[in-house]
């Protein structure tokens, strides 16, 4: 069930309200919109543009600049494989390649059944446990290629 245009616009008005007239609101507003919809849908961005009086091109520029923002729907679970230095020297590329093959997804892609989205990230700050992967909010460390799919499969 997708939200109607009117309800989207109403929600956007609420999100934008605290930032109206002030400065520095673009990124927090986009973060809030993404929290609400899981990604940045086009009609939501258009509504933000109208409410904040910022041209859509500028919003698009900001949204595509930062790795955190997504313009397409994402999977139920987000797999973030750390590609930081500590994880790299302990074999994270092999993990990433294996997940790509097994789940049949590309980097930053989503599986057809919308179960997983695979994103390489630069360091999640748990370098002491390299190689590290986050699935949603959970950090998993000391991974090996033979253990990794078991961890992933436990997320329905």
């Amino acid at each position: 069930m997708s939200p109607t245009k009117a309800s989207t616009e109403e929600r956007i008005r609420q999100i934008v309200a605290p930032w109206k007239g002030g400065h520095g609101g673009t990124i927090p507003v986009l973060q809030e919109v993404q929290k609400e919809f899981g990604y940045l849908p086009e009609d939501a961005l258009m509504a933000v543009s109208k409410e904040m009086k910022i041209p859509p091109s500028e919003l698009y520029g900001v949204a595509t600049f930062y790795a955190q923002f997504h313009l397409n729907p994402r999977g139920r679970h987000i797999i973030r494989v750390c590609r930081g230095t500590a994880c790299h020297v302990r074999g994270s590329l092999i993990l990433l390649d294996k997940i790509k093959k097994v789940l049949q997804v590309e980097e930053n892609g989503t599986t057809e059944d919308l179960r997983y989205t695979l994103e390489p990230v630069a360091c999640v700050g748990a370098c002491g446990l390299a190689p590290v992967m986050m699935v949603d909010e959970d950090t998993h460390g000391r991974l090996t290629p033979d253990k990794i799919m078991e961890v992933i499969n436990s997320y329905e």
Partner: protein
Amino acid sequence: MALYRAHVLVCKGTGCKSSGAAPVYDALKEEITRRGLDKEVMLVETGCHGMCEMGPIVVVYPEGSLYCRVTADDVAEIVEEHLYKGRLVQRLLYTTPEDKVKIPHYRDIPFYKKQFRIALRNCGYINPDNIEEYIARDGYVALAKALTAMDPEDVLAEVKTSGLRGRGGGGFPTGLKWEFCRRAKGDKKYVICNADEGDPGAFMDRSILEGDPHALIEGMMLGAYAIGADEGYIYCRAEYPLAIKRLGVAMAQCTEYGLLGDNIMGTDFSFHLHVKEGAGAFVCGEETALMASIEGERGMPRPRPPFPANKGLWGKPSNINNVETWANVPSIIREGGEWFASIGTEKSKGTKVFALTGKVNNTGLVEVPMGTTIREIVFDMGGGILNGRKFKAVQIGGPSGGCLTEEHLDLPVNYESLTAAGAIMGSGGLVVMDEDTCMVDVARFFLEFTQRESCGKCVPCREGTKQMLLTLEKITSGKGKMKDLETLEELALMVKEMSLCGLGQTAPNPVLTTLRYFRDEYEAHIKDKKCPAKACSALISFVIDAEKCRKCGICAKNCPVDCIAGDRNTPYVIDQERCIKCGTCLEVCPFQAVSKV
């Protein structure tokens, strides 16, 4: 206040949490209550102790015994033996990797013995969510001293005397930076904390944010007082949700205690603080890009001058420092600049936190006086190389840093010595590499990172890093020519000279240092089409030794792409065309019949 005969500290830092600290905490809570000890034994959640490799970590005071890799199943024994009978649980104590000695006391563990903690002094000791615990460790004493007994000029002078330099990368003298901002014209000024921690492989800022947020807040207030600012921002990366949460709790407590807001401690000094969540871009760690990001723009750097001290956030004079820099300030004001200056080397004062990671036994955070050697850090504290392999290099300073070799092991670490060797202090990421790490691949790895993170504003960085990356990819896939090495060097120097900001100016460093110290590895990839470390997948293959193969089929069952064939009568064979070189077969084979060639 109730008195307890023992304190049990459970690390709930990110490292220990992901190793399973939460169930350990819950089990301890239940067991302590069940045995009726909850009036005598206090259970505390702390931030990171630094020795993440050994997590989940539990420390029991007053003895100061540190238990490693504790699971919920160990809890009953800890409570029964240690808390009831006063006997140590030997099997959970830290054991040295070489001679298997068990060490009963926290402070005697080699990992901690040589440490000198200023920035991390409270991490792992206190509950970061409780301001009272920070205050009990002399927290906000420095602020009280400054506001009641010192002029802003005195605070500034103290920081200048200390010789503190920026811990975020550049090593710029902090006192001098503050002075520029103090002397700048303007009635509105800002102080900013750079908590973007972009270096992949460093996590000291995270540890301070999560383990001792008040130290950072107090440091920023002291800075604001010295500079004449009344508002501050902490720019924290969104990948650190726990840090953001703890900062929120700490700030709310400060407001409640009258330590944030108007007329702090009944004086004329007022200070308001905000947290801004980053959105995932390495370049936003650069100060001018960071300010653009706070303003809601794309985080692109701009040329300096004008420097932030004159024209910073929203055009106002602003002073930006790194988390670790700020966290040093309260100790400097409390103990005096002379005291701080007595630690370290001639030009690099105080301590530095290093994130020790990679192929080393004890990964984690260590804080040592400036001038400590790499050997002491990697071998004495880090416990040497993982699995008894041979040391090859350390990469210091993240993507802007460089790789140093065995001949640098006795180099005393300070800003000047590292720069002279071709690396930089950077944020203090220290990644250890062994003989299985390919240095060409490491250079390619860093270039891939900086190339992806280049904001695209200036041509040398945007195009130059791309061309360098393509050349390195050619070499690691076995298609390189000797001429490529010259091209690489030329490009590297061009990008270094001509880029707009620090990202481009330092991006070639990993390439230049590896070319300088490991040229033979580049040549092996080009001339012999071989990767000496057996790491570049295009130049290696996995094979099964038919003699050793017992035909069990475990490799075939585990192969993610089903490219291994064989049966109970014929030894298994890998189809090289389809193999993705994931190494799973090598790992699962019970008879070591698979090898990498």
